[in-house]
């Protein structure tokens, strides 16, 4: 059974009298331990799809099976718990807490965790996690004292602190130069291979998508042809 299974997912926004259907009958699945890139032009619906996949939003209709659980009809609180325990997020703009040490940034999700680790345990785990992303020396640095690549690594450590099954990375290299981008992408690959974390990379950049095992193209709210082809159709890339 795949980790993620979407079955005829629709998402419609109501803007006054208008109805905008952003996602149309999306059916897809992601297996455990995959590194998948979600590609599409802006406005294609890839962000909406990621929000639904990340349990930040609910589909208008359709089924979403995550880790053997139908999650499309969960309440706000249940989804929050699910996000905390099974999902990690990495954002384009890092979204670190300002004037807060790297350690505290990484430990932050633990304060919402169900097992509710003690303060000391939380610090130990956050420190381990920072060491894993190669920032063991900088646990007391505030985000403003870190470079972009270091900040993104702190963000990755934060996303992994609750040992999630899936990691969503939304344009993780969008604010990074090419050299640090490569570092971060290599880190994703390593995490995927060594720890078996399922990673979904959302991007419009084919160079980034290149690091994935497979690429899912979204076009106008639908999954475009050539689903399993990392080398996407040229026409769609041009739009991106």
């Amino acid at each position, binding site marked *: 059974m795949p980790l993620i299974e979407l079955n005829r997912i629709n998402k419609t926004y109501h803007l006054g009298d208008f109805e905008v259907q952003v996602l149309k009958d999306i059916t897809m699945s992601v297996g455990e331990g995959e590194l998948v890139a979600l590609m599409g032009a802006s406005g294609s619906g890839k962000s909406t799809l990621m*929000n639904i996949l*990340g349990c*930040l*939003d609910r589909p208008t209709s359709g089924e979403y099976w995550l880790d053997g659980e139908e999650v499309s009809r969960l309440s*706000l*609180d249940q989804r*929050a*718990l699910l*996000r*905390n*325990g099974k999902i*990690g*997020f990495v*954002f384009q703009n890092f*979204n670190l*807490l300002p*004037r*807060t040490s790297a350690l505290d940034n990484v430990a*932050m*999700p633990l*304060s*919402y*965790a169900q097992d*509710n680790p*003690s*303060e000391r345990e939380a610090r130990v785990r956050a420190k381990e996690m920072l060491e894993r992303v190669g920032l063991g020396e900088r646990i007391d640095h505030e985000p403003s004292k870190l470079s972009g690549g270091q900040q993104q690594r702190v963000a990755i450590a*934060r*996303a992994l602190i*609750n040992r999630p099954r899936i990691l969503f990375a939304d344009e993780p290299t969008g604010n990074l130069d090419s050299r640090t981008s490569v570092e971060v992408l290599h880190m994703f690959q390593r995490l995927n291979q060594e720890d078996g974390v399922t990673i979904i990379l959302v991007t419009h950049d084919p160079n980034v998508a290149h690091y994935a095992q497979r690429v899912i193209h979204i076009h106008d709210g639908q999954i475009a042809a050539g689903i399993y082809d990392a080398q996407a159709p040229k026409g769609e890339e041009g739009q991106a």
Partner: protein
Amino acid sequence: MRLYRTLRLALRALTRNPLRALLTTLGIVIGVGAVIAMMEIGAGSSTAIKKTIASMGANVILILPGTAASGGVSFGMGSVNTLSPDDCTAIARECPSVRSAAPIVRARAQLVYGSRNWVPNLMDGTTPAFLNIRDLDNLTEGEPFTERDILNGNRVCLLGPTIVRELFQGESPIGKEIRVKNVSFRVVGVLPAKGANMMGMDQDDILLAPWTTIKYRVTGSTLSNSNQSAASTSSTVNSLSNLYPGTSSDLYPATSDVQAADNPMPVRFATVDQILASAISTEEIQNAIRQITALLHERHHIREGEPDDFNIRDMTEMTKTLTSTTTLMGNLLLCVAMISLVVGGVGIMNIMLVSVTERTREIGLRMAVGARPSDILRQFLVEAIVLCLSGGALGILLGHGGSTLVAILLHWPVQTSPAAIVAAVAVSVTLGLAFGFYPAWKASRLDPIEALRYE
């Protein structure tokens, strides 16, 4: 554990911008400070008032003569002397709630000692019971006068410290003779110092003497001339007259000894200006007043429905009046303080709303990593409460400091009031809850997707 973490988070959020936090809480600080200072000063003055009243003699009941009325026309209070020394004795003897009672005869006259003179504020003729009622038992020097002195109308007196200072200038007055209206009095004792009473009257400027002496030797009202229809008495037949030599000139031709012997002077009531009684305890004051009223009704033959010819006052009324005045003032100031607290609370709400807007991204992030709306609500609510509480703590310090300063600089009586501190803390928390709720609720209702995208 969880709460501790929320608390630490709130503290960290506030210390990120300490100046803003301080300015935000200023309203609360001032409000709480005002409440604390007000309560401490108010409690201090009401205690001071209670002390003053106690120093006037605890549980004192004052019985004053009433009004004279003729044909439905009242002549006002004090227009007739209706109280007799026998009333006083009867009150002391027959009212179970009355511990003791003393008559008071007032006079005003110049005191002369050597080349110095002084007019005392109070010159009261009374009985030794007075000392007990007014809490003057422990004389500084000498002995009080006795019942025998009263019976004999002996010319002895007790002086208050002020008179001793003015007339004797540090000398011991015991055994010295002072002159009052050409009547020589021997000083037998010095009263303890009591200081000023709550009206500012010097309670030490007092001369106490047997009431018979004051009445008949100083004020010069004799049994005969107090009733002008009575003839002046002969010294040879009525030996009592020797004790009470009249000073006023005779309106009527003097009666001969034979005439006087033929018309023996009827036994008359002397009158006193006031009767001072003390109840056995504060709780018994009302009972004592009832008993005295009933007794005087009976003695004065006042029937049901007729107006009283006496008035009874007790100090609890005065205590109540005064404390209610201070309570009223205190409440008034408390209202002002409450208004400033509400204004401070609105300031808190304002800043919390700004803070929520500023930290929209943070809220979005927290929600994305698994914070439930209730977690966000709690975080901001705790932050508002911490803000208010620290403001309250600062206000308590400020208020306490302020009232201490008032005590030191203005010498106002001040009393630390734990109730006020508890109330201030409670009010701060309530304010934090009340004014922090809306911003916190607003934060908790944010959509994580929107919030994450917020710039």
